[in-house]
């Protein structure tokens, strides 16, 4: 195929692709440009001068909205989700290579968790915690124990919201692990075991290094999916909002280009994370290749 001359179809398709990219990036670029509005500028074109005024305003805080707090919460939650996703999905992936009872059921549930509409999952988790709170309140009234009386809600960033995020990131993680293990040659493990390595050693020194780049991929999925999660968090968040929820509120409450500055900033941040993940992945791959060379 590669030696065929370029057909007209190629150019048509290339044009289509280019249009698609414009469609994909155009609006984002628009707000990128608009975020550099002059101090007198509004939410729409024309540009009223060029400045970093709105970034400055943003830095000073969006008036009432604790945007940096929200950002910080989202970052922390994203990191926790990322770690848990990598670890849980990795081990589950290992388990699925062996056979165990209920594996079909678990797999079905994992896929279901991915495709059940987010609002339903969110509602369910919200309900669950609501009922738990009621139960605690009831227990407090029944027992009169002091430490129960102060109880407000079990809902929170690291309880209900974390759970909601995991129902979203884990299926992705698991599916990636399947894809990875499908292509993973068990010969490496067998070789390690034949050389007398224990299971843990094999895992630590053979499986993890080989799968390293893929695990970075799972981590990337885990973090960014969590960082941008909105629908599942919406009904399952405790007192303090995550960044996307705060942003959703802001879309209707901010009347200045600050919102665009914020958009530019979060997009930049997402890009930085992707860059970092890709970089790490490449680095790991190169190191692996080098190590392979040395061994060879």
């Amino acid at each position: 195929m590669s030696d065929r001359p370029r057909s007209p179809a190629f150019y048509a398709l290339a044009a289509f692709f280019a249009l698609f990219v414009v469609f994909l990036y155009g609006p984002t670029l628009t707000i990128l440009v608009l975020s550099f509005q002059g101090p007198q500028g509004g939410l729409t074109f024309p540009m009223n001068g060029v400045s970093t005024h709105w970034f400055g305003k943003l830095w000073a805080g969006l008036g009432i909205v604790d945007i940096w707090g929200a950002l910080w919460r989202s970052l922390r939650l994203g990191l926790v989700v990322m770690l848990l996703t990598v670890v849980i999905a990795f081990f589950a992936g290992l388990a699925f290579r062996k056979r165990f009872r209920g594996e079909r059921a678990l797999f079905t549930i994992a896929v279901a968790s991915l495709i059940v509409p987010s609002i339903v999952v969110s509602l369910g988790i919200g309900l669950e915690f609501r009922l738990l709170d009621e139960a605690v309140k009831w227990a407090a009234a029944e027992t009169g124990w002091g430490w129960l009386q102060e109880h407000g809600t079990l809902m929170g960033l690291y309880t209900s919201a974390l759970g909601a995020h995991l129902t979203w990131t884990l299926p992705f993680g698991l599916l990636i692990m399947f894809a990875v293990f499908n292509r993973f040659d068990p010969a490496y493990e067998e070789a390690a075991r034949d050389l007398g390595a224990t299971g843990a050693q094999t895992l630590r020194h053979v499986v993890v290094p080989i799968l390293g780049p893929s695990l970075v991929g799972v981590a990337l999925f885990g973090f960014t999916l969590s960082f941008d999660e909105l629908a599942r968090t919406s009904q399952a968040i405790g007192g303090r909002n995550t960044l996307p929820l705060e942003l959703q509120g802001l879309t209707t409450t901010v009347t200045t280009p600050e919102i665009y500055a914020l958009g530019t900033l979060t997009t930049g941040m997402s890009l930085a994370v992707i860059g970092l993940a890709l970089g790490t992945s490449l680095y790991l791959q190169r190191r692996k290749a080098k190590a392979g060379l040395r061994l060879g």
Partner: protein
Amino acid sequence: MTTTIKLSRRTLLQGAGATGLALGAGPITGFPNVIAAEPVTLRYLGTAVNQSGDIARKVKEDLGITIEYIPVVTDEVTKRVVTQPNSFDLLDTEFFSLKKLIPSGNIQGMDARRIKQADNITPVFTKGEVGGKKIGDQGTAPKKVFYLEGQNAKTFAGMATEWITLIPTTYNADTLGIRPDLIKRPISSWKELLNPEFKGKASILNIPSIGIMDAAMVIEATGDYTYPDKGNMTKAEIDRTIKLLIEAKRAGQFRAFWQDFNESVNLMASGETVIQSMWSPAVTKVRSQGVACTYQPLKEGYRAWATGFGLPKTLTGRKLDAAYDFINWFLSGWAGAYLNRQGYYSAVLETAKAHMEPYEWAYWMEGKPAEKDIKGPDGSVLEKAGATRDGGSFETRMGSVACWNAVMDENTYMVRKWNEFIAA
């Protein structure tokens, strides 16, 4: 101002003090310093409209209390009070939601004796009158839900008690906002909202309980039907009202629905809509962007609303003291003046007056032409000298209130019908 005020020695002293402060323009002192010694943070749950960075900064300066805002939309405030009563220390919500909040048992009555200005809160709240004149009380008028029978009572008291549900922060009378430059003719009735002339350029509030009342104002204006109580409709009345809304929607009357202050500003300023129900400060904000916008008084009167501070039942100890200190500070004038300058009304008028320039007071509260340029709290010019406020003075406006934002007995049915309207 001719509002009747029960004068007490305490009031007089405070009035004098406040005036003195205004003259001296010095920082407010005399608040408990205990608070300043150990920093207290109050988590302030409310809608974004009432949460201002300036107030938080000022109270930090004066009392050393840190205010941590949790801005959410109106419905969400109610939801959090009912489901997560520990997630905040201070509540700022609308009076109409009290019908949901109080039965949940998560709000404690506020001790009137600890509120220094309790006696001076405008009679709009305590008696439902302004300038000695009764005002419309259809819907959840604040006077109906202002007092509790006891601190932890789940029922409202019919008369004044020492347990207050919410201490008013801001209130106002809503009407239609219009773009006179695009409409080019006088508007004088609520029925214009659904006039086909403005097809695709009208908007209403997407908070079911409030939106339906705007629709009710329209129906009454057309003379089709007069509600015994617009704020508490029967199922048949809800059906009738929603039917009208659905017809209008199918005919393409609405451009969009708005849910939040700034959303309404954006719709109006960008020209997406030319007529919509609106809040007074939103109109001010549109105007400050250099866009012509009128807060149009209408012959049928206004739909009023009020918000206030409440305390979660679980609040105790130093945080409770700090909450009372903050509320007392809020009523002591600076915040009231700040709110008045945005076009809202404040709970205790005298203290706010002491913190405003006479020409400001004359413009905002007495409906007189501005002697000088009127500036907003941020220093930007809102109105040029000579302008008068739409709707006139405080008394004229609040005196023309027809109904109050409400939660109906048939709320569940109404929400379902509202969804039907959205789906139409």
